[in-house]
Structure formats: C-alpha cells, structure tokens
C-alpha cells in the first residue's frame, strides 16, 4: 500500500486507537486527496466507524498522527475538528428529531456562520419542501438528505459519511449516488459503505479494512469497477 507523501487533504499516519486497554485500530495509514471520493469497506467490527470517530475527534489516538491540510488535528476536540472543515455524518442517521427541518439547518449553518441554504437545496430540492416538518417525522432517505445538507452548509472540504445508504430503499440509494457524484465536484468525500455495487459506481479509490487494519488499497478504476476489493472482506 502506498501512502502518498505529497500535500494531502487528510493524512492518517500509523495510528493506533484503543477503547481502554482494548486496541481496535492497528497501525492504520491512509490519505485522502482533494476532490476524491474514497470508500472504506470492511466487515462489521473491522474498525471502520472507530477510524471515522477518531478522525472526527471523538476518540484519541495512542500513537501516530492525523494531519488535515498539514496540520495535526488529533489534539483537537470533535467540535474543533468540525470547525476546521471536516464534517462527520454518523451511521445512525440521527438528526435533531425534536426540531423542525429548518431549525436543523439553522443550527448547522450557525455553527459555521452560513445561513444561505440555497446551494444545498440545489443538491436536495426535496429538503426545501420539508422545512416546516419535524425532523423526527422524516423518512430514512429524507433524514439522510437532511444530514448531508447540514454537512454541506458552509462548503466543507471533507465529509466523512458512515454507511449513508444503510437501510434505505434501492431507488433512494440511486438518488443518493447521483447526489454524491454532484457533491464530489466541490467537496471531498470519505465514505464507509457496505454496498459494493454502489462503491464500484462512486469510488475513486477504495481502502479495505479488516480486524483493525488496512489490508488493501485499490486505486485502479478497472479493479474498482470489477469489485476486486470484495476478496479482502
């Protein structure tokens, strides 16, 4: 596996992460370039979500470093990492369920001083029709759209999405795949995904994770299209 040493958007360097004494991430290194769609695949329990939570600032590393635009971000707290321009969309699709859709957007916009929702409505026009609805009443697909819309406010450089299509109907997954393509023109995406055909469709590069370590990096478009990463799962 090659870890490019050039100027990267995100550079994870040989990190170990533990829950108490239990080590769950072992010497993981990876990088994300500007404008890429990178997908992280792996079985349940491989450590994918732990890796994302670590990048997002919720877990601390035992060794190594995480650099974002050359700056070491591992000492930062989660909210400071978000303020740096990294947004994390958790897999549980939890929005602020007791608030309206517009209040959800307002909160996300206020955090980065951007109240112009127009650009995100271009990606998800449906959200604009749901502004007065209580977020807890949205369907799974609508919630996912809202979460991505909230993450997109303020044009972040990098969005980490943890299994964005989990539990969604096939036609919604198709719509989201189209949205990912559009979003990736302006924002770098790092996605955990179990849906292999979707991964083959959207990924520029694929990292495969198993038992807390990166076991493969697939860069070839042909290999990705052929879903050759499946053998590492």
């Amino acid at each position, binding site marked *: 596996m090659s870890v490019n040493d050039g100027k990267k958007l995100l550079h994870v360097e040989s990190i170990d992460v533990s829950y108490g004494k239990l080590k769950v991430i072992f010497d993981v290194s990876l990088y994300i370039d500007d404008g890429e769609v990178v997908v992280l695949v792996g079985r349940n329990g491989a450590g994918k979500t732990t890796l994302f939570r670590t990048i*997002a600032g*919720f877990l601390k590393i035992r060794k190594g470093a995480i650099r974002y635009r050359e700056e070491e971000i591992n000492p930062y*707290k*989660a*909210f400071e990492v*978000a*303020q740096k321009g990294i*947004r*994390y*969309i*958790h897999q549980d699709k*939890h*929005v*602020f*369920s*007791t*608030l*309206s859709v*517009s*209040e959800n957007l*307002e*909160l*996300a916009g*206020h*955090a*980065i001083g951007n109240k112009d929702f127009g650009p995100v409505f271009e990606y998800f026009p449906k959200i604009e029709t749901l502004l*007065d*609805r*209580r977020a*807890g*009443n949205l369907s799974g697909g609508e919630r996912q759209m809202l979460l991505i819309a*909230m*993450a997109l406010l303020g044009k972040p450089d990098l969005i980490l999405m943890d299994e964005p299509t989990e539990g969604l109907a096939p036609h919604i997954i198709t719509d989201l795949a189209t949205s990912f393509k559009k979003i990736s023109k302006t924002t770098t995406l790092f996605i955990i995904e179990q849906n292999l055909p979707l991964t083959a469709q959207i990924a520029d590069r694929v990292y495969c994770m198993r038992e807390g370590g990166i076991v493969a990096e697939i860069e070839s478009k042909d290999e990705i299209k052929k879903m050759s990463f499946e053998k590492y799962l």
Partner: protein
Amino acid sequence: MWKKTLDRLGPLLVVLLVTVLRYLFPNKISFFTEIAIYTIYVMGNNILYGYLGLVSFGQPFYLGIGGYATALFLAYVGHNPLVALLLGIGSGLVFGIVLGPSFIRLKSSYFALINAALCAIGVFIFERLLIDITRGNDGLWFRSNMSKLPLLDVRLPQSFFLFVVIVLFLVLMIYRHLDRSTLGTMFRGLQSNEEKLKFIGYDTFKIKWVGFTIASCFSTFAGSLYAINFGFVNPSLGENSRAVEVIVATLLGGSGTVYGPFFGAFAFLGIKDIVSRWITRWELVVGILTILVLFRFSKGIWGTIQQYLLGIQKRVSGSNDIRSPKGSRSAGAGS
C-alpha cells in the same frame, strides 16, 4: 395561524389573565403575585430541564441566593429595591459562571445530586454560618428600609402586584425571544442529540454553561422578588425539601415551552391553595396529578392545549399532512 397569534400575544395574554383574575378575586392578591414570581422561578428550571435536559434538585439554593442578595443589600447597604433586584440577578450570574464549569461536566444524575447537596450547604450557611448577618431562622426583615420607586411603592401589595406583572411581561418577552433565537435552538438541539451538535461544530460545554447561568439568573431573580414581596427572608426559602416542587410545576405546565412555566406555576400553586384547605397533606393530590401527567399528558397543560388546538386546525383545514407550523416541536415543545 393561531400559533403565530398566540406566540405574538402570549406575554400580553398571560399578564392580562393574571390581572383580570386578580380583580375578580381581590382578596387573592398575594396568591396572584406569587404566581407571577413562581412563573419566573419555573422558567429557570425549565431552561435546565425542558431545554437542556438537566434535572436539578437544587433550585431552591439559587432562589435563596437571590433572596439573600436582595435582603442583605436592603437590610444593611441601600434602600432602592431596583438595585436590590439587580444584585439578585447578578448573584445568579456570578454563581452560574463560577459553579457552571464543574457542575455541567457531571452526568445528569450526579448533576441533580450535587445541586441537592449545594442546597443543603446553602441552608447551613444562611441558617448557621452567617447567622450574625442573616439572623438565622428568625429571618432578616427589611421592609421598612425599602424606599418607594418613582412611580410605584413596591412596599404596598397592590403596587407590588402591578410591578411584578410588568416584570413578568418583560421576562416573558425575553424568554420568548430566547426560545426563538439560535441559542434556544442550540439548547433544544443539545437535549435532542448532544453528540450531533458536536459533529456540526458546537462546543456543547459552553452552551450548557450559558444555559446553566441563565437558569441561575432566573431563579435568583425570582428569589429577589420573593424577598421584596415578603419584606424578609429566612433559610426556608432555600430548603431542598422544596426542590421537587419546581420540577413538578415544570412538568405540569409543559417542559421546554415558553408558556408552560406559567401554566405550571398556576396549576401547582392553585392546587396547593385549594387542596390545602381540605387536606393537610396537599402534596398527595399534587403527587397523583404528577403521576397522571407523566403517564397520560406528558406534554403538560400547555403542550396538551397546543396539541388540541393543532387538532382543531387540522380538522378545519381537512389536512392529513403531518407538517406543523413553524417552531412547533415534539413532546412538550413549542411556544
């Protein structure tokens, strides 16, 4: 439509209702004065419980702090009740800023208990430690030291009622603005999903701290008003045996709402007033009602009224859409 109208006119309607009732029941002026003050007290607890999701068994401590800040000023330093009230609010600000960072780090149950412990310490301080200046259980009397205000003599019950009603109106306006502001949305967002709030870039510690401090200010302000109303204070104002009362009032009215504290204060004090005429243990009825509210009307009085009005609106418009008017929220939420 009705919701927007209620939202705009709410503070005025509340104040009008209290005033009309006061004139309908002229011998109940102290009762209606207490409702206005207790509403402000419940508002403080509502910020903690209804907006931030924190249960505190120590709110009487802050009530006592406000009461004593006002009483000590009027007994020993000055005569102006407005300055004394500002001192009361200031004491809440100081205690909120000083205690907040250590208290809000605690998990919800520990937060509740540390406030209860603080309450016990507070009573000891008021009753024993500072007995030379607080006069312990005998209480500190200062009514004769108070000067009258330019337009109102707050030493007189009728004038003080008017003063409190004006204060309630202003406080409700501020509270409504807070509820509608981004800070209010942050508070509710924090209760809904604290981790998510961090994901999108908020320092939730600071949000809780601000909320805790605002809640303290409301409680100490209510304590100051109590002190001026009675013209004296004693340690019973801050007793932690009364800590549950404000939580019950918050639940009864509808937590996380602007007008819930008024309905909660009205219902709680009303039940107490009526039932205590017949039963010594009036708490029994309040207890039964609380259980009923928790199991059957979790949105409280104001939340249930809102739900009822929304149902009527839906029937009138014939709409099955689950959309709700702007600002309407879940359990116990909404203006």
